Every structure is written in structure tokens, then in C-alpha cells.
């Protein structure tokens, strides 16, 4: 190899190594600040205390309220995105005319391209007033509205990726089912969805992971009150919204408050890391099956 080419390859290698450095960086940074955090706060308090008030005079450091807030909004989002997204995927794959599918799929993907701050505004100024007209006791900031809008945002994750998975199922399976006299509905749910199940599960896991890490919608529309419990009508706070709340203020480096956002961050990272690893593992197995 010529010398100049060696330099080019070295540069390319450096670019690729940045991805590894990033991962190590994320883990080191989160661990470093979290270890400092646990020098002052007991781990037991962190995982069992039902109050999270690090910014108040009476300080409590229980992550549980933030975790339930995060799980609650995620659960609502999935309850919207899963049935709607999966139905769209099956409809587009099995029922809709080809041309329709070709136009609608990218149109729906626009939903995922809209900046999340826009969704936050939409939840606060359109969806919450609308829900309040049905259920007047709903608070101005609540998990329900934020969760629903988050669900709408992740519809394309479920619908597009699931449709891709359905599309990859060999045509012979479909034709055999039709040949036996099955309707499209029977073929969809007895043959196609089971055959594409791993791809569909991956799409759902990715959607969940996305919902857990979503920040601006909940920061704007769900309130900033850490609250242990699963009541969707009152203000709550998610892990991500807490990090934003602290970052908006002026918290000096090295203080305990500063370290709380890293302790919250590592909790968030652990959740999404497990989900992403599971989805990657399923995807690998699935690919091998079809090779």
C-alpha cells in the first residue's frame, strides 16, 4: 500500500474509533458523577424512597417517582401506538392498493420527522384543552395528554418497521393461506403476523425505548412535579424532564444537584440499554433464520 493511502486508512480508522470512544465516554461520565452522587446519598434511599425533591430545602433522593412518571407516559404512548401502528402495518401490507401504500408510508413517516418541541406545544395547546372538554378535572399539565401525543409521534416507528417485517415474509406463505380459502384477516393474523413476529417485536421495543428517552413533549406538557404513582390526570415528572428542569436553571458544577442529573441519566441509560440490546439480539437471530 502506498504511504498516502496508509494515512487515509488511518484517518478512516480514527473516524470509526470515535463511536467506541463515545460509548466509553458516556459510560465513564455517567458512572463517574453517579459514584460521586452515591458518596453523599445512600443507594438504598435512591431506589426505595418515594420522594424526589433534590431542589427543595427538605431533600429526598428517591428515583421511584421519576421512574413511575417515565413508565406511565411510556405506557400510555404504547397503548396508542401499538394498536394503531400495527393495524396500519397490516392494512397497508394486506389490504391497501400498492399505490396507496407507496404514498401513505412516507406521509406517516413525516410524523417522526417533526421536532419534538412542536409535539410538546401541540399537546399543551390542543390536546390538553380537548381532553379537558371531555374530562374537566384533568390538570393543565398531565401525563395523559403527553403520553397520547408521544404515542402519535411513535406510530410510524411501529407501522413502518412492522410493515417492512411483513413485507419480508415470503409470498408463498401468503399464497398458501389464500389457497386454503382463508380471508385476508385470517391470513394476516394467523400467518403473516406470526411469521413476522420478531421484526414486529423489534419495532415495538424500539418504540418503547424511544418513548422512554423522549424529553421535550413531557417537559412541556406533563408538568414538573415528581409524583409516585400512576394517575394520568395529574402533573408528573419523567427522568428526562427532570434533567431538562435542572439544566434550565443555573446549577454549579460539583454540587449534589448537578450530580443528580447524572444519577437520573444513568437510570435512563440502563433502561434503554437493556431494551436496545434485546432488540438487537432478536434482530440477529431473525436474520439468521432467513439466511
Amino acid at each position, binding site marked *: 500500500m502506498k504511504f498516502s493511502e496508509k494515512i487515509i486508512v488511518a*484517518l478512516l480508522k480514527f*473516524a470509526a474509533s470515535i463511536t467506541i470512544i463515545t460509548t466509553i465516554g458516556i459510560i465513564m461520565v455517567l458512572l463517574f458523577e453517579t459514584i460521586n452522587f452515591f458518596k453523599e446519598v445512600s443507594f438504598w434511599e435512591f431506589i426505595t424512597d418515594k420522594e424526589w425533591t433534590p431542589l427543595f430545602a427538605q431533600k429526598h433522593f428517591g428515583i421511584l417517582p421519576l421512574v413511575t412518571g417515565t413508565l406511565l407516559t411510556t405506557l400510555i404512548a404504547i397503548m396508542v401506538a401499538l394498536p394503531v401502528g400495527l393495524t396500519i402495518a397490516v392494512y397497508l401490507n394486506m*389490504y391497501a392498493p400498492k399505490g396507496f401504500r407507496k404514498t401513505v408510508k412516507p406521509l406517516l413517516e413525516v410524523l417522526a*420527522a417533526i421536532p419534538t*418541541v412542536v409535539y410538546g406545544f401541540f399537546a399543551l395547546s390542543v390536546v390538553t384543552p380537548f381532553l379537558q372538554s371531555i374530562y374537566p378535572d384533568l390538570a393543565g399539565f398531565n401525563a395523559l395528554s403527553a403520553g397520547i401525543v408521544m404515542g402519535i409521534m411513535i406510530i410510524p416507528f411501529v407501522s413502518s418497521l412492522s410493515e417492512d417485517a411483513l413485507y419480508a415474509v415470503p409470498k408463498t406463505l401468503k399464497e398458501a393461506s389464500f389457497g386454503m380459502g382463508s380471508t*385476508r384477516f385470517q391470513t394476516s393474523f394467523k400467518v403473516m403476523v406470526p411469521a413476522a413476529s420478531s421484526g414486529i417485536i423489534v419495532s415495538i421495543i424500539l418504540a418503547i425505548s424511544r418513548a*422512554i428517552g*423522549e424529553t421535550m413533549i413531557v417537559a412541556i406538557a406533563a408538568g414538573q412535579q415528581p409524583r409516585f404513582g400512576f394517575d394520568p390526570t395529574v402533573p408528573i415528572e419523567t427522568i428526562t424532564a427532570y434533567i431538562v428542569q435542572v439544566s434550565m436553571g443555573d446549577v454549579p458544577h460539583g454540587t449534589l444537584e448537578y450530580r443528580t442529573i447524572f444519577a437520573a441519566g444513568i437510570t435512563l441509560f440502563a433502561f434503554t440499554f437493556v431494551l436496545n440490546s434485546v432488540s438487537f439480539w432478536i434482530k440477529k437471530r431473525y436474520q439468521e433464520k432467513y439466511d
Partner: protein
Amino acid sequence: MTNAQKNRIIDKSFQAFGVVCTFFGLAILAVLIYNIFEEGLSRINWDFITNLPSRRPQKAGIYTAVMGTIWILVMTTLIAFPLGVGAGIYLEEYTKKTKLASLLEINIANLAGVPSIIYGLLGLEIFVRIFGLGGSLLAGSLTLSLLILPIIIVATREALKAVPSSIKDASMALGASKWQTIWNQTLPASIGGVLTGVILAISRAIGETAPLIVVGALAYVPFAPSSPMDEFTVMPIQIFNWVSRPQHGFAVNASAAIIVLLLITFMMNGIAVYFRNKWQKKIKW
């Protein structure tokens, strides 16, 4: 009623439900866009674009936010484009199928799934504190570059993979070196896919709010930035700031700013789709 009839009714009902669900998604998109345009469109004029921020909603403009977004756009592209495409080329063309290569692949898949706010925490500790960049444009665009790197890498690899090996073999057989083959054959043939991925990634970066808030972009910046070390704000943060205020005038401003932001986002997505279609048509192997 026979079983066959029953099955046909179920089939037809599901079809109707499918249509409803599909149009539910599209209808929400329409309602969202309609609402924002109805509220904000009349607020958009030249003054709104060129005015500095203000306490009074009627006088406030998005000039500093637009300039911040343009700075971030340019700097993030300059950093992430060469790194992402370079890493993509290395992973696709130079690594063999080893344990290390698959580890790299798992790592990138995982990075793509890390919530954006975690990148903010990374940027805060590394770029803002340890590198001492403060809440500057440079710290912000470095953070966003790391965030979109996995997207660019994956898109680059997909595009390179789509080039048939016969093209590469032919080039090598004519005596071209590996890099000459990549530079003169593989890259030009796959540039459409690469650019599509890069533009989509940049458009994602433009809409990001959370990581920039964490690295210390400010809600209120009185002047437009003039160098990479300056403090800054961007359009999503300006919108977030206006949304958080109670006065109705700021909600109108937020809608107007959202229109501008959406136009930029849709335009970039449109360009990306255009590139993809153009290159797909041009090349027939």
C-alpha cells in the same frame, strides 16, 4: 349465518378499521399543521425574522435563534459529515468479519438508541467542562455531531453495500488500489444514498432541543453569535422558551417560529427524498 359469511364480515370490518387508523395518523398530522398555521401564520413577517428577542411578544423576533440554528447546522455538518462517512467507509470496506467488527456494529446500533438527552450529559461533562468550551456553539455542535454520527454511519454503509461487487472487482482488475476504487467508483455510485442519510441526520439535529439545553445553550441570548466560541440559542429552544410562558402573545410567537422550523425540516427532508430518487433512477446496473 355461516362461518364463511362471518369471516367475511370480520375481514371487511378490519379493513374499515385499517382505513380509520391510517387516516387517524394522517388527520392528526393535518390538525397539528392546521392549528399551528392558523395561529402563527399572520405573525410571520420580515420583522419577526430580523428582530432580537424581547420581553414584549409583539416586538420579539427569532433573529438570534435563526442565526444560532444556521451556525449549528453548518458546524455540525462540517464535523459529522467527514467523520460519519469516513467511519462508514472504514466499517464497510476495510474491516473483516471478525468479532471486533460485530462488536463495532452492536456498539453503533446501541448508540443509535441512546436517548438524545444522554448525549447532552456527555457533552456537558466532556466538551463544556473538561475541554472548557463552556456553553458555546462549538460544544453544542460537537455534541450534536456525536448524536447523529450513528445515523450517518448506518446510512453510508447501506449505500456502499448497494454497489455491486462487480464494479469494485472491475476497478481492482484494472489495477486501481483499494482506496482508488472506493474514491472513484464506490463512493460516486453511492453518493445519493450517503447524502440522503446525511441530510436526514442533519435535519434531526436541527430539531433537537434537549441535548443543547443540557450543554448550556441559553433561552435568552441578546445578540446573534459571531464566532464558534459564542453563546447561542437555537429555534427549538426559543420555541420551548415561548411555550413555557403564560401570555397568549408568546404562544402566537411560538406557532410562528414553529412554522419556520417546520419549513426548514420539511425542506431538508424533501431534498433528501429528491437525492434518493434521482440517484436511484440514474444508476442501472
